[in-house]
């Protein structure tokens, strides 16, 4: 009888250790994943901003040059019309149509690409990208919190001491340096 009780107790303790071990490993890996998520978002921010700037630049240039072209062609057409040169006029009008259809292609690539809308989309993309980065950091800190709290809590800490190399990780919370914090605190918007 005593034997059975001891065996059952040992099994229970063993089961608890295995479960705790697995929980901690899952938490460690989740934390690592979230840590990498910050890198992913930093990388994403770089790429998104780079391409955004390029698109906007290209579009702005395109808009400027097209506008000039259209105005010039319009003038040609008007001139031809007043001179009665129907052939030159049709040629100029046709070129304008070509430009218009090209603009349509650009429009299809970037829906609602109007001057104001353009800025708003840019703004939305910047806000969202910055938010994603901030939330990735927050998510990382959350997983560090969960892991550290589990690791340090009673009973779990005893299991951790059995497998120090595997279970005892030291993750640092994502934070700014003291100098940086001081600088950011002093920051106000100057209008």
């Amino acid at each position, binding site marked *: 009888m005593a034997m059975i009780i001891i065996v059952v107790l040992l099994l229970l303790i063993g089961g608890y250790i295995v479960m705790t071990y697995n929980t901690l490993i899952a938490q460690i890996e989740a934390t690592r994943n979230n840590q990498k998520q910050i890198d992913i978002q930093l990388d994403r921010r770089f790429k998104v901003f780079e391409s955004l700037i390029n698109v906007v630049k290209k579009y702005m240039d395109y808009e400027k040059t097209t506008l000039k072209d259209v105005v010039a062609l319009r003038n040609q057409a008007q001139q031809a019309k007043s001179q009665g040169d129907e052939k030159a006029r049709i040629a100029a009008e046709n070129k304008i149509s070509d430009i218009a259809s090209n603009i349509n292609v650009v429009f299809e690539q970037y829906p609602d690409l109007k001057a104001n809308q353009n800025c708003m989309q840019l703004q939305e993309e910047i806000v969202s990208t910055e938010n994603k980065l901030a939330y*990735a950091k927050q998510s990382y800190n959350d997983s560090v919190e969960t892991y550290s709290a589990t690791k340090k809590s009673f009973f779990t800490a005893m299991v951790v001491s059995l497998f120090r190399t595997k279970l005892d990780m030291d993750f640092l919370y994502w934070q700014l340096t003291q100098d940086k914090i001081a600088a950011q605190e002093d920051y106000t918007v100057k209008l």
Partner: protein
Amino acid sequence: MSELDRYANSTVDWRKTLRTNNRRTFFVIAVFFAIYFLLGLLVDTYLASMHYPQAPVSQIFSALITLHIFPIATLVMLAVAAISLLVTFTLHDKLMLLGTEYREITPETAQTLLEKQLYNCVEEMKIAAGLHYMPRVFLIEADYMNAFASGYSEKSAMVAITRGLAEKLNRSELTAVMAHELSHIRHMDIKLTLMASVLANLMLMVLDIFFYSALFSRRSNGDDRSRNGLVAIIILLRYLLPVINILLLLYLSRTREYMADAGSVELLRDNQPLAQALLKIQNDHDNNQAQYRDAYQQTPHENVRREAYIFDPVQAGIEPMTSLADAFSTHPNLKDRLAAIGFKLK
């Protein structure tokens, strides 16, 4: 903002809110399972008492518990529950959008800035919640302001919001609502409430079948004492259990709403956007009550979504009461919800 000025802001420990509600959920689910097995055992006892008319109930009962008699009814009920859960889970996301006019939003299909923003908000919250899969995003073409989440796992998750909500909320409020919905997914609320309601409905069905069969078989031989006692229990349960079921389900769904609200605060680390969004939704429903009543009523299968919505239309006096469950809201009232995230009426 002006509406929110009527409330005093204070800090609230969302970790504690999550913990207490987790405990409550565990309690509700445990009670459900207990009732479920007790009912199964009752049916088994009844069946066994037909086989052994002489044996007293207590003896049959202990024989069942110690597995001397095989509890066949309990196991059949369990199997039926498992199958119906499986069917519900596989059909669920289709079911949830039933009767609405909807469109899926992806980065490729986003046509306007609004849709792009909506997708971005969901993606931001997905990152904050540390989810591994991006839920599918649906926009429902409706004027009223509401949103819901569905899906039985992270992988099959979806969120749907109405155009009215997307247009009338600002970016941070929209993010707060999305955080609330993603919290439902993260806490696996859909799975839980579905499971509870399937179990509850099955219990009532079994009880009904049982009730009628007991009534009719009773006439054949009325001098059976142990069975007479059981029949009395059955009749009592027939009227008591539906009420208990409804109360438990409501308690569960309200608890989960509080948890999702706390989850939203957890993800945003700010309680103001959610409070503002909730107030806006409530006021909007109050102001356009007549119009929205028509809109809700003209949308078929609205009751499927009721529990999942961020705001229960019944609270704004919309929707007719068709059953006992409609008399109570599936959601806590706005004042309590705001108090739970730290806004107390001044």
